[in-house]
């Protein structure tokens, strides 16, 4: 449906810029404990990298990074990681999302909360990144049945 672009400038620029944007997204996500950043911002930056590839080198060639079929399933997986962190806390006797009850014995409560925040933000990142890619793919009709 969407043909590959003919301009080599746009293609080279998209190929060069997209990994840098994604690296910046991963940095913003993992540095979210110590500086401005976190799951939402990192997820949006990762999605921006993939969408730049979708725009620059065409929809069919950019399927190698994130396929259109897997986006909705990955979005559900992100929400499930988020909810699962809270459910594990329930199973070990705490309230929903009370990370102090996560089943790691040798850590004190404050450090457990530190790692609980990390797990929750992993879920947020996956959900937001794949969610934005899925909305873009649906709007342009990429990945529909028999129309890849």
């Amino acid at each position, binding site marked *: 449906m969407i043909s590959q672009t003919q301009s080599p400038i746009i293609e080279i620029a998209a190929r060069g810029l997209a990994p840098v944007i994604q690296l910046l997204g991963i940095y913003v996500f993992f540095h*979210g*404990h*110590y*500086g*401005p*950043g*976190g*799951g939402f911002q990192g997820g949006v930056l990762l999605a921006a990298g993939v969408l730049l590839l979708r725009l620059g080198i065409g929809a069919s060639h950019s399927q190698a990074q994130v396929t259109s079929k897997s*986006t*909705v399933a990955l*979005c*559900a997986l*992100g*929400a499930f990681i*988020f*909810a699962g962190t*809270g459910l594990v806390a329930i199973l070990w006797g705490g309230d*929903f*999302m009370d*990370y102090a009850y996560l089943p790691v014995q040798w850590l004190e409560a*404050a*450090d457990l*909360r*530190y790692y*609980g*925040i990390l797990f*929750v*933000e992993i*879920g*947020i990142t996956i*959900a*937001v990144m794949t*969610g934005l890619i*899925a*909305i873009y793919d*649906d*709007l342009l*009709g990429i990945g*529909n*049945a*028999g*129309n890849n």
Partner: protein
Amino acid sequence: MKLLQFLLLATLGSILCYTVLDMPPRGEIDAPASRMESPVGTPVAGAYYIQHAYEDTHTPNMVAVVLADYRSVDTFGEVVVVFAGVMTCFFVLRRRRP
């Protein structure tokens, strides 16, 4: 009809600009949301988060702590909203097979 709508919008704008004068001015330190205690004597959430975030979680970024620990159920609701929006786009725009 169009004139009436413009008048309505102008009235709304002037009412908003007039009522906003009752808010604390920009950057005021003594605003109710920035104090340690609210006017009725209960502790204010912002000051509590600033003072207790690091000792509760050992995480320096207070926004991340409020986002993922103190108000994590709220954030869970937001993620569910994102997922619901994705599913809405998926079902509205999915190619119907003839």
